[in-house]
Structures are given as structure tokens and as C-alpha cells.
């Protein structure tokens, strides 16, 4: 029997997955303000590319996460260029992260998360926060499922170590 996938409307997809996309971008950028701008930019981009979305190749949430990741990468590149121009690396400092940016976690976990790289935070966001399946997460990251699992394991281990060090201090 041939199963025909449902084609949702863009409005319903945007309404349903707005929080997920926003949370993912918060994890990647460590900034609510930046994440807000990037989320809006992501949905603008998604609307322009909506005709490319193929429900058989993955869920709308996965597709939106991929668009969000591209948007975030563009943002990081622009930031990198700007920092090079200004010779300033202030954004690398953990102390500049807003309090409670990750949604009201314990201060130790917030600090530990903020100390991770964007690559480590994004795999945690996809697999833990958004609870994406390994296949979907790997597709968003553009890596194999094994690599995705390894990356998540290392990120959680690092998180664990940093929290332990924080508690010990």
C-alpha cells in the first residue's frame, strides 16, 4: 500500500515548531537576543524555501533545524569576520552569557553549558533538549549517526566534568 505523507501548511509548522527552533538557536548562540533574531531569520528563510521541503525525507522540525543551523553558521561566520576586524574576542568570555539563558537550569549547569563550544551545545540541544531521533539529529548536523552519538557522549562527558570541577571549586 502506498502511504502518502501529509503536507502541512507553513503556518501550522511555524506555530508548532517555533519554540523548538528558538531553543536550538539559544543553545547554539548562548544569547536570547541573538537567538530571537536568528529564529525570525530562520523562518523567513524557511518560508522562501518552503517549496523545497519534502515530508518523505524528514519531519518539518528536522528541516527547520537544518535551516536554523545554516542561519546560525552564517551568523557565526559574520561574527568571526567582525571579531577579526575589531581584534576583540569578548564574546568568547563565558561571563558575558545572560543568566538563565538556557531556561532556568542550575547555575552550575548553565555555566558548564556556556563553556562548551557551539558544536557541543548543538548536539545536546538536538538530542537532549528537542529529543530528536539519532537519524534526524545526524541529518541536521550532516554527519553519520555514529559520529553524532560520539559527539553527544563527549559533550555530555565534558559537561559532567566541568560541573564536577565547578562543584569542587
Amino acid at each position, binding site marked *: 500500500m502506498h502511504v502518502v505523507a501529509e503536507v502541512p501548511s507553513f503556518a501550522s509548522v511555524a*506555530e508548532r515548531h517555533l519554540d523548538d527552533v*528558538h*531553543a536550538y538557536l539559544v543553545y547554539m548562540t548562548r544569547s536570547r537576543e541573538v537567538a*530571537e533574531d536568528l529564529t525570525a531569520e530562520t523562518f523567513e528563510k524557511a518560508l522562501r524555501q518552503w517549496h523545497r521541503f519534502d515530508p518523505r525525507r524528514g519531519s518539518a522540525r528536522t528541516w527547520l533545524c537544518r535551516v536554523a543551523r545554516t542561519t546560525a553558521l552564517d551568523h557565526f*561566520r559574520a561574527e568571526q569576520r567582525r571579531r577579526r576586524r575589531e581584534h576583540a574576542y569578548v564574546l568568547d568570555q563565558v561571563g558575558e552569557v545572560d543568566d538563565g539563558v538556557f531556561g532556568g537550569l542550575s547555575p552550575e549547569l548553565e555555566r558548564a553549558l556556556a563553556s562548551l563550544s*557551539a558544536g557541543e551545545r548543538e548536539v545536546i540541544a538536538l538530542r537532549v533538549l528537542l529529543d530528536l531521533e539519532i537519524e534526524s539529529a545526524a541529518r541536521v548536523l550532516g554527519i553519520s549517526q555514529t559520529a553524532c552519538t560520539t559527539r553527544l557522549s563527549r559533550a555530555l562527558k565534558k559537561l559532567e566534568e566541568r560541573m*564536577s570541577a565547578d562543584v569542587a571549586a
Partner: protein
Amino acid sequence: MSQPDRDSIVEEIRSAQIVAPPGLRARVRALAETAPAAIAARPPHRLSRRRLALVLVPACVAVAAAAALAIGLTRPESSGSRDAVRGEASPTTLPFAAKAAGAGSSRGGAAIPATSGRAQLYEAELTLRVADLSAATKRALRLTRGFHGYVRSVEYGSGADRGSASLVLRVPVGSVQAAIVEYSAIGRIVDQHVSIQDVQPQVDRRFRQLQAQRDLIARLQAKLASPALSAAERDRLEGRLVAARRRLVVLQKQQAALRRQTSYANVSLDLRTKDKEVVVPSEPGRIGRALHRSGQIVADEAKVLVYVLVVGAPFFVLGALVLGGLRLSRRRSEARLLSTS
């Protein structure tokens, strides 16, 4: 505070609530409302690349086969291909002389008479199928002697299945017409060829040269008879006389040789026993020929495809390597960017 473990960290992260602020939600809603209704996601029934390939490849093969069949049916047949199918049994391979005589007849070879009173080189070639090779050969030799001719060469070979004899006979030109008729009666004519070359102008020219040499010799002898000649002059005239006599001898020999040649005809007689039946494949019909041509076209298409693959393969591999390299480079660049962000 207790040491954090992985499960508790995961639980804490999952329990966290990150909600989009109302302002952002309003922006996105407004954006979605402005989306034109015409923009729709890719319809799910659209063919994927794999399915497209599954459809396109057989379609291309079918088109190629149909084109080959259509060309094979509509292309006019080339004579070369038909000859190749028919083999060597085509009657058009027989020379005109045999056709004039009626190929396959047992008697009545097309013996063209030599023109009497003119010097002509007469050549005749006869191929005969005989039942008894030995008897036929003997009869040919007997006939030659009967016409006051002679045998120049005989090659005789007889095996279990088949045999052949090649005779080169010299027959007086005056009797050649009758001789060919008699030779033709030995067996069934398979092939016959007669060639006549008129050399009378050559004979006449040489006769005039002989006459001129004789006149020259007579004049030289008359001069040498004079007692008033000096010794040097006598020596010179004697030298010329020797050369003229030598030239006369050469011309006489050439004239004699040509006369011998023209007085006898060369008859090449090729006697063969009946060949074993050769199974000649029946000529295919129109449909068969069309299918044959279609097969050739399909083979040509396959050759082109193989050529394209062989020539294009390095470029495909190079392209794949370049794309793979670019992809790897992009991933590494992204990884570096994410690790520093």
C-alpha cells in the same frame, strides 16, 4: 552539592523550558500569514531521484531499442550487406561470356573465332565441372593433340571428396574455335572467359623496321665495296654494318616470337569434380534483415555508451573527488567555526 551524574544532567536539560517570547511569536505568525497560498511544500507524490532513475533508465533503453528497430525497418538495404548474406553463390560473379553462353549448359561454349589474316593473341579460360576427373583430363589432352596443339603445363590433384586439374594448352589459332567447343563438351561449364588482343599493328611496324635494317645493310655494303675509302672511313662503316646486322637479328627473333605467339592460342582449362554440398544459410526475410540491422544499431549504441563511460569515467571520478573534497573542507570549516563559537 552532590557530584552531578549524566542522567541527572539530561533530566535537568529536558525539564528546562525555553519558550519563544511573544514578540518573536507575533513576528513569525505575521510572516506565516503573509505567505501566499500558492507556496506549498513539495507534493509527496513527486518522484524521488531513485524512482526517477528507475523510470528513466528503462525508458532510455526502450527509446534506444525502438529507434534502432525503426531505423532498421526504414533504412534502405545496402547491396554490400545483402551480398555478405548471400555469400559467393551469386550468379553475377560469372563473367559476361559465360552468361552469353548460358551458364550451366553442358555444351556450346562461347568460342569467339579469331580473325583470319590478322595477328592476334588469343586467350581462353574454361572452368568445367566434370564427373570423372581422370577421364576428362585424358580427353582434354587427346583433343589438344588432335588439333595439333601441345600441352604447356598440367596440374592434377585428386582427393577423396574432390579433385581438380589445371591444364594450360596451346592450340593453333585456326582450330581454337572448334577446340573450345570440344573442350566444353567434356563437362559442365562453370566459368568461361575469352580474350583477343590484336597485335597486327605491332607486326607491321616490326616488318617495316626489318625492311629498313635490310636497306641500311645493303647501302653500307655498297659503300664498303668502293676502293676509294680511307682506312678510318672503312672502319667506321664496318662498325655500323655490324650493329645493323645485330639489330636485324634481334628484330627477326622478336618477329618470329610474336608470330609463334599469334599462331597458337592459349587455352587454360580448369577441370573440377562436383564439390560437396555446402549448406548455405537461407537468406533471411525482410523482418529478419530489419532485426539484423536493428541489432547492429543497438550494438553501435552500446559502443557509444561504453565509449562515453570510458572517456567520461575519469572526469566523473575527478568530479566526485572535487565534490567530496569541497564537502569535507566545508565540514571542517563548520567544525572549526562551531568549536570557537
